């Protein structure tokens, strides 16, 4: 039998909800452990090791200390996987990037602001090569397991490049726009099985934008449905402050 890949888990600036979601694989945790050795995971265990085959990393990079650690992790691992919105595109943290970082720090720490150095909240990929990404806030278990099984089986992981609207239509959900809600589904990357609209809630855009999004058109949709320009941009920024890709009209 092949030796099991050595897996480590790390967290940066984020809520640790994606990590928790992994501890929530109750039905699958033991199956997963048949295929991998978890060798380092601060949230769950004491051990620390020098090298790993796969590193799962949650959270965005927002302090000089983070930068140092992510380079170190990249050097120790063969495969690096970004888990969740914060690691993939900066997530909600990136909203602060729109303001002067000095102002933000002063609001929070006042005179002591220099004790707590901060950088713009950026995805891991801004600093190191990321091999795979699991989107979402939080990431979904299904996608995480699909990615993991694909990698372990030596196959190509599938990552949706289309919008949440696709999954809503496949699941025959009622469109939440019809209920007066304002939904980010038309421009948000799918993969969650349209979880929020399936539960009667609008899509908040937590999975980042589809590749080559028509942002202008989306802002128009938000405005047509009653948001001010300011609110429309805020809605776009909730998870997408770092997203810059544009569409070919």
């Amino acid at each position, binding site marked *: 039998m092949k030796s099991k890949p050595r897996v480590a888990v790390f967290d940066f600036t984020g809520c640790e909800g994606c990590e928790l979601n992994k501890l929530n694989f109750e039905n699958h945790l033991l199956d997963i452990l048949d295929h991998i050795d978890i060798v380092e995971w601060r949230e769950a265990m004491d051990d620390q090791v020098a090298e790993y085959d796969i590193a799962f990393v949650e959270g965005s990079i927002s302090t000089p200390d983070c930068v140092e650690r992510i380079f170190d992790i990249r050097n120790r691992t063969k495969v690096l996987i970004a888990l969740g919105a914060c690691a993939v595109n900066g997530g909600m943290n990136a909203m602060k990037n729109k303001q002067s970082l000095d102002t933000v720090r002063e609001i929070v720490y006042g005179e002591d602001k220099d004790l707590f150095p901060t950088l713009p909240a950026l995805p891991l990929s801004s600093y190191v090569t990321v091999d795979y990404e699991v989107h979402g806030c939080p990431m979904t278990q299904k996608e995480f397991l699909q990615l993991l099984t694909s990698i372990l089986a030596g196959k190509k992981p599938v990552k949706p490049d289309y919008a949440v609207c696709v999954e809503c239509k496949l699941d025959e959900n009622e469109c939440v726009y019809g209920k007066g809600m304002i939904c980010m589904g038309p421009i948000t990357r799918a993969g969650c099985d349209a*979880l929020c609209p399936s539960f009667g*809630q609008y899509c908040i855009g937590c999975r980042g934008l589809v590749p080559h999004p028509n942002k202008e058109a989306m802002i128009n949709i938000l405005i047509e449905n009653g948001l001010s320009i300011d609110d429309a941009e*805020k809605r776009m920024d909730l998870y997408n402050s770092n997203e810059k890709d544009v569409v070919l009209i």
Partner: protein
Amino acid sequence: MKQNLDIKVKHLTRVEGHGNIVVNMNSGKLEKAQLEIVEAPRYFEAMLKGRSFHEAAIITSRICGICSLGHQITSLKATENALGLEVSNQTILLRKLLIHGALIQSNILHAYFLAAPDFLNAGSVFPLINTHPDVVVRALRMKRLANDIGDIISGRAVHPITPVPGGFTKIPSEADLIEIKRRLIEEALPDVNATVETMQALAGAIPNFTRETEYISLKNDNDYAMYDGKISSTDTGLYPDSEYLKITNEFIVPHSSSKHAKNNRSSYMVGALARFNNNHDKLLPEAALAAAALGLVAPNYNPYMNTIAQVVEVAHAVYDSINIIDTLLNDGLKNEKPNQSPTKYGTGISVTEVPRGILFHEYSYDRQGRITAANCIIPTGQNLANIDDDMKKLVPEIIDEATEEIIHKLEMLVRAYDPCISCSVHIVDVEFVE
């Protein structure tokens, strides 16, 4: 007697978030014994300010993935108070059920996965899969059921979907509730008994250490207060939620990116043990029996017993969840739409018990329903001063033990509080006033 001791545990494991334990004894004088908080701040100010009331709970839920349901419900209540949104009895019952689910999940995670390895001298739960497979499988089963309560009622246990200001975007079906109840009875009740037995067997590893402090939690006349009530201090009595700032008195210390809190003494304790000390007479009979079996008698001043109090609360939450489901089914589920028509715009405060202790959210809204000011004070922040005080008493008591053993006991102490450093730091920057 040992005169010098220098301990630094960087990035303490098996807790949520990043913290260091630092102890420094020089020529017999304890210069430092403290938990340093080094979590990276996230600047929630930038996220919340100017956001619509629909978004407040979506954003504050992201303060912490571990406590997301607690933040969400507390946030919703504060928003509803600020905007004068009445919610139905059904909404309150469903929320209470969700709070129980989150508590079971969180307490089981802590007791079995984060704390139990300490009792067994293991570095994590993973070696226990081989040595104690039935215990691990049981823990996973209990966690799964608790998470399923969240998944089914709120769409997702982490960062829940359906709870919104004024109610729920989707009501579970009766069949869903009947199935949850069946599993609570068939799976969870035996598992609770087995958990009590397991913890009885492990309790010998709990250090014998006591330090009386002030215990603060919610309290009301009707139940083991989780969803609402008055703020209750064992030292200074009851306060309405509007006076929460008189209790918390937050202050900044140099070694922590999270603020500390104090009321009557230099520190106070919140969480399962505080709730137990305040409300033990409101435990359901089955949970009271579990407490007795585990040797937990109120008042209890041993912070390590917080883990045991968590187990007692799991028993209470399981039995009370069954009662709540019975009430919901008897009343008949109504397909209610959330009440989102504000009757006023102002400031709203809410107080809720979440697994790690008492949680406060306060928001002010302008006439467009946008947030102008917010403040959140979370349990772990309130416990930090108490942890430091415990360490200062504990270190001299165990100073002659081997350094590894001292470190082990200090780590166990911090873990016993089940600290959520993610929350404690991320929340510090939520406080802002226009």
